[in-house]
């Protein structure tokens, strides 16, 4: 492997979301439709001047109050006036869109696009503007400003929106189930970051950003024109409702003591809710370990947990990143961003029927090789790791017919008829252009 070359990435042209997590406490996802190409381009021309590049965001992180990311569906690129001969150069999965790939992704039953909300499955979904804000006041200001801009742009319509915000306790990032997030993330060569121990070597940037060498070699099959595709990426959006009351009831019904309930929650995830990995803390939670980035990701499975006694083979993190037990893992890595939505459900409260969950983005250079593979094989394949009748206990498509096996001496524990702790409420495939691409689109 060649040494990292910090100057290789065009950080001035890459949207910040690809490389940075910003200190936002709130956000708004605006889903848009362009009834008129000129109106859409007018909106984009004003917005592009406000988008932080990966270089800007680092230089202005302390002084910035808001951060904008823009991305487009294939229908959106067409609605902005892209010529047909360029549109056909995008890969099939992106052109078809997430809703059309439902069977491949496992979005069936209640997760089917027929049941999606926010107009996410429709052909008139053209763009997303992600408005992240440092606090509630800035959030309100950004939404008002954006509404004013929409009013100035003929034919640009808000299909729907979703507000996201951190959920308490605010001392660390976690979902509504209480699982700590952001503990394992791939690092790109040239990003200036060092992977934490256990996170693997830095990956070729082409695994995430178009126009750069990937783990297989030089870039191939780039969408045209290159002015649009270079520094761009693909982004799979998933809105997942988390059934927090059901999840807590399940833990209580299937484990007697509070400690055993925490252990069961950890077995589903592969980490304690604190974030401490089960491979390193198999019997008791270890919050200090969870807080230590030099240790909290430093484990493998093949040598340290070959039989799954710590992390069951079907546990969430063992599926979505099988580490040393998967072949060519470097071709399957993804970047995750996003936030939680809906109100916090206090620990002692019963299910209130209000929707809450995570609204996440999976960023990769190939939707079919990375995101769709993860959905199809790692998350929803019942025979993953020879398990026979399991899907991911947290985000797999569960219909009550699957089980979850917890390896244990002398006899494993089998939880039959696992309920669905999450439901897919919507999703879409977006292209996340570089700033060069945004300018190209604005001046079509």
């Amino acid at each position, binding site marked *: 492997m060649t040494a990292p070359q910090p100057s290789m990435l065009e950080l001035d042209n890459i949207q910040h979301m690809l490389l940075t997590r910003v200190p936002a406490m709130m956000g708004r996802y605006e889903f848009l439709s362009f009834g008129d190409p000129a109106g859409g381009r007018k909106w984009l021309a004003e917005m592009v001047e406000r988008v932080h590049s990966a270089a800007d965001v680092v230089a202005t992180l302390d002084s910035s109050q808001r951060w904008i990311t823009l991305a487009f569906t294939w229908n959106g690129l067409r609605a902005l006036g892209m010529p047909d001969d360029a549109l056909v150069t995008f890969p099939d999965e992106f052109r078809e869109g997430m809703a059309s790939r439902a069977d491949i992704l496992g979005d069936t039953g209640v997760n089917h696009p027929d049941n999606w909300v926010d107009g996410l499955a429709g052909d008139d979904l053209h763009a997303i503007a992600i408005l992240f804000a440092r606090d509630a006041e800035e959030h309100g200001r950004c939404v008002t400003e954006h509404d004013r801009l929409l009013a100035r742009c003929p034919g640009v319509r808000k299909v729907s929106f979703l507000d996201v915000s951190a959920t308490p306790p605010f001392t660390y990032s976690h979902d509504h189930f209480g699982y700590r997030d952001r503990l394992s993330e791939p690092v790109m060569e040239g990003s200036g970051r060092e992977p934490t121990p256990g996170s693997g070597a830095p990956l070729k940037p082409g695994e995430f950003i178009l126009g750069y060498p990937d783990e297989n*070699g030089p870039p191939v*099959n780039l969408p045209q024109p290159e002015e649009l595709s270079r520094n761009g990426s693909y982004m799979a959006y998933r809105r997942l409702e988390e059934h927090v009351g059901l999840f807590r009831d399940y833990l209580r019904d299937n484990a007697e003591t509070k400690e055993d309930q925490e252990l069961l929650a950890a077995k589903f995830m592969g980490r304690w809710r604190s974030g401490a990995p089960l491979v390193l803390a198999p019997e008791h939670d270890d919050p200090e370990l969870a807080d230590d980035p030099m240790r909290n990701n430093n484990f493998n499975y093949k040598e340290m947990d070959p039989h799954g006694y710590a992390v069951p083979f079907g546990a969430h993190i063992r599926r979505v990143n099988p580490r040393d037990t998967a*072949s*060519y893992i470097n071709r399957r890595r993804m970047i995750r961003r996003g936030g939680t939505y809906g109100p916090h459900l206090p620990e002692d409260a019963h299910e209130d029927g209000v929707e809450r969950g995570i609204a996440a983005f999976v960023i990769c250079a190939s939707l*079919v090789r990375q995101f769709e*593979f993860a959905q199809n094989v790692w998350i929803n394949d019942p*025979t993953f790791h020879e398990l026979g009748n399991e899907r991911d206990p947290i985000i797999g498509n569960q219909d009550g017919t699957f089980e979850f096996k917890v390896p244990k001496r002398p006899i494993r524990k089998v939880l039959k008829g696992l309920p669905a702790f999450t439901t897919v409420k919507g999703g879409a495939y977006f292209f996340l252009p570089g700033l060069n691409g945004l300018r190209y689109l604005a001046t079509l």
Partner: protein
Amino acid sequence: MAAFDHEWSKPAAMAIPESGYFEMERGRFGPIFPRTPACYGFSIIAKVKPGREEAIRQHGKTLEAAVAADPDVLAVLKLHYLRWNLFPVGDDLYFQYLGIFDTDFDKYTEDAVMLFSQTGIDTVFTNLEGFPEDWKENPDGFVKFVREHHHPSFLEYGEYPYVTADEVKKALRLKAAFSDMLDQMQ
């Protein structure tokens, strides 16, 4: 799963429709072919470029050496058996790659292509007509070739149906362990 339900004890045969599947189920690269009593399989049949027979036969030696050097080199494919054949049809020579797998080939196609590239199996394919010239840089073209030249079977039989290679190895390991235990009891 069938093997877990002791269906392995009852030999089974399955006749498969001409399409290769019973109901259309879409995978990432095309239709998903069903699991049969003989597990999953793949039969790639393609015409050999004129004068390349010896080159293809030589690759049998290449693979033999690769497995001898690293017995786990093909593990990613989840294989039971692999058979390569050359046979004439009229004046032409055809190559058949027949593999019996434990996974639906669609799921791990990219891994297989990567493995082919690393073990020299890919160069067998360069002797076949229609194989993309830019296969090294363009794995998608390799995937497309494999899908287009797959001929699904219309009958499959398993004497111990639906059993995976891992289960067979586990059972044999268990037998060995029991033998060892009995030895220790003497």
